[in-house]
């Protein structure tokens, strides 16, 4: 009836253990890293903007100088001496910024320059002259001083004085110092920012993770004795809310199956108690005083009946347990449902007619099924026995079957007393009896329908019961047919 498929659970736990960084550490690193990168970018931009605006300012200044030189040249045509004087004055200029001016002749030699200029900035240290005002170039002397310089070609007017170009430069030492100062401050800010980011990141991460810790803490606390406990969902962020709710749902299901299991064990104990009590009582009474052999035989016979009952109950429970094991597979064979229903009917016919209940099979044509024949018989037999037991004399029990390539449908309907709606959801539960007083009148212990459901589920199918009080009950088994193997 059963076979077991040997499927080992795939165990590749290495995959789950690749990184052991804690979530807090990871979050901290990410927070700190990204915040620091932002600050770094911002300060870098500010520094760049500052140095660029300094450059512009300097270029503006140099352009002013060039204009002044040009004016002087225009006013003092040919008077080289005056021009020299003018240059010295202009170079000393305003704002305490030391600037240098040099006039270049047509031959490329210096005609006039600010005194001492050639020591620091020789002619060839300047870039090639350009024709209009433009960006200057950074010049660096051998002793490490920094200048901004520009060379402008004279193409009109003063050029007739054999002056080809003018070179203007200004000292940038102060600006360099300013920038260096700025850099030092930035580094300080960045260092502090890095530390602050790390600490803040760590705290944010801890805060974010705290609900997870709380969930874990609750999960750790839960034992079979306090399965009713749930994770408090109030105040949880949305993402964790879903997790917590899923977890709580799982606990709900666990609690339900746990309750079902413990009710089930209680039921088993209760059901075992009756036959064992009978056994014990009968034997005790029998041994109480000497009796005839017939009396002893009677007691022993009754004991044997109780043993049979116990054995059958154990068989049924084992059957249910095995059917629940997901690794259980059934061995199917093909048979004709109509014929099989006929067999079942033939078997129950005598019991039905004794109960005054008509029993008939209505199957149109050949209905094939791929099932375990013994299990199918058992399921249908249980349904029929149940139907006969719940139908009064004069009623009828009808078995029908229909099917196609995909499924087989078997129906057992009766014209009996019906089942009240409140009992319907439970009739397939183990040991459930709609009418507790009836208990074992028909020999069953309340496992018959549970076995029917197990058998249906083993075949991947379902069984449903609909009923109307006073009208009758209809049990329908729908069993899918396995696709033919290629």
């Amino acid at each position: 009836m059963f076979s077991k498929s040997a499927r080992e659970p795939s165990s590749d736990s290495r995959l789950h253990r690749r990184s052991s960084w804690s979530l807090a550490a990871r979050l901290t690193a990410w927070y700190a890293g990204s915040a620091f990168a932002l600050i770094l970018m911002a300060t870098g931009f500010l520094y760049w903007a500052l140095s660029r605006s300094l450059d512009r300012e300097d270029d503006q200044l140099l352009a002013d100088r060039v204009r002044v030189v040009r004016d002087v040249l225009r006013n003092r045509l040919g008077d080289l001496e005056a021009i020299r004087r003018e240059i010295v004055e202009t170079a000393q200029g305003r704002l305490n910024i030391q600037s240098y001016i040099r006039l270049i002749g047509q031959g490329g030699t210096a005609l006039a320059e600010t005194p001492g200029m050639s020591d620091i900035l020789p002619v060839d240290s300047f870039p090639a002259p350009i024709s209009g005002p433009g960006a200057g170039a950074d010049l660096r002397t051998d002793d490490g001083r920094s200048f901004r310089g520009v060379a402008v070609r004279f193409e009109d007017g003063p050029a007739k004085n054999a002056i080809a170009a003018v070179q203007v430069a200004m000292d940038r030492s102060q600006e360099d110092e300013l920038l260096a100062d700025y850099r030092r401050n930035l580094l300080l800010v960045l260092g502090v920012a890095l530390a602050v980011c790390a600490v803040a990141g760590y705290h944010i991460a801890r805060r974010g993770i705290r609900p997870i810790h709380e969930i874990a803490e609750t999960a750790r606390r839960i034992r079979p004795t306090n399965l009713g406990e749930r994770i408090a969902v109030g105040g949880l962020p949305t993402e964790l809310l879903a997790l917590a709710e899923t977890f709580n749902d799982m606990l709900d299901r666990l609690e339900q199956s746990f309750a079902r299991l413990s009710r089930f064990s209680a039921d088993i104990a209760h059901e075992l108690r009756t036959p064992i009590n009978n056994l014990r009582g009968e034997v005790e009474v029998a041994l109480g005083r000497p009796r005839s052999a017939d009396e002893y035989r009677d007691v022993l016979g009754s004991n044997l009946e109780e043993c049979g009952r116990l054995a059958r109950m154990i068989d049924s429970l084992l059957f249910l347990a095995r059917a629940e094991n997901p690794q259980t597979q059934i061995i199917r064979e093909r048979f004709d449902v109509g014929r099989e229903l006929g067999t079942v009917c033939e078997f129950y016919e005598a019991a039905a007619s004794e109960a005054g209940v008509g029993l008939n099979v209505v199957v149109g044509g050949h209905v094939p099924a791929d099932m375990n024949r013994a299990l199918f018989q058992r399921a249908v037999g249980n349904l029929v026995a149940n139907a006969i037991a719940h139908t009064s004399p004069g009623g009828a029990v009808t078995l029908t079957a229909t099917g196609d390539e995909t499924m087989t449908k078997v129906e057992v309907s009766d014209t009996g007393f019906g089942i009240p709606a409140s009992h319907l959801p439970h009739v397939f539960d183990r040991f459930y009896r709609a009418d507790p007083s009836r208990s074992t009148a028909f020999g069953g212990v309340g496992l018959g329908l549970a076995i029917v459901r197990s058998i249906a589920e083993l075949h991947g199918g379902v069984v449903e019961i609909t009923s109307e009080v006073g009208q009758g009950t209809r049990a329908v088994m729908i069993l899918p047919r396995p696709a033919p193997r290629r």
Partner: protein
Amino acid sequence: MRVLVVEDEPKTAAYLAKGLSENGFVIDVATQGDDGLHLARSVAYDLVILDVMLPILDGWAILSAIRRDGMGTPVLYLTASDAVEDRVKGLELGADDYLVKPFAFSELLARVRSILRRSPARQPDLIRVADLELDVVRHRASRGGQRLDLTPKEFALLSLLARRSGEALTRTFIAEQVWDMNFDGDSNVVDVHVRRLRSKVDDPFGLKLVHTVRGVGYVLEERP
């Protein structure tokens, strides 16, 4: 017929020995695996009944040792587990049949008898028990020359009981043999069939042949 019972549970061993000897077998009991193997090797038994769970040397080991020795002694083993693996294992090792605990003693007796008469004895065409006569070929039954009007299933039930006359048959076995039904044994269906059969076979006659064996099932025999 000499039968060896290897079983460590004292009560089980005791009732098996008692029940089998009362049914005409000569019984030896071994309560440990190594004793059992020793006995099986030194005495020519017609059958060995072997519990699988045994101290020192388990049933499988004894079974394979016996088969390794080339002994063809029939073996019936008893197991508390009806897992398919266990059942298949015993048969693969060369056992002839098995029973899952808890089992009915009548069932055991039936299996033992069927193993021992496995050499296919031809079924007689005519069965006689007291004044009951069954013509298996023509499907006719009569008592004291008076024809009994039976349905085919009733005839099948009666001939099963008559062929096994004197042997108590369980309801499950009857359902399987006559109706080819896999039956829980929880309901009284077989009882109703037997009641109907009795109304035709026994009720009109003075001598009752079909008897109820309480807690077991039914037997057909002539009782004084």
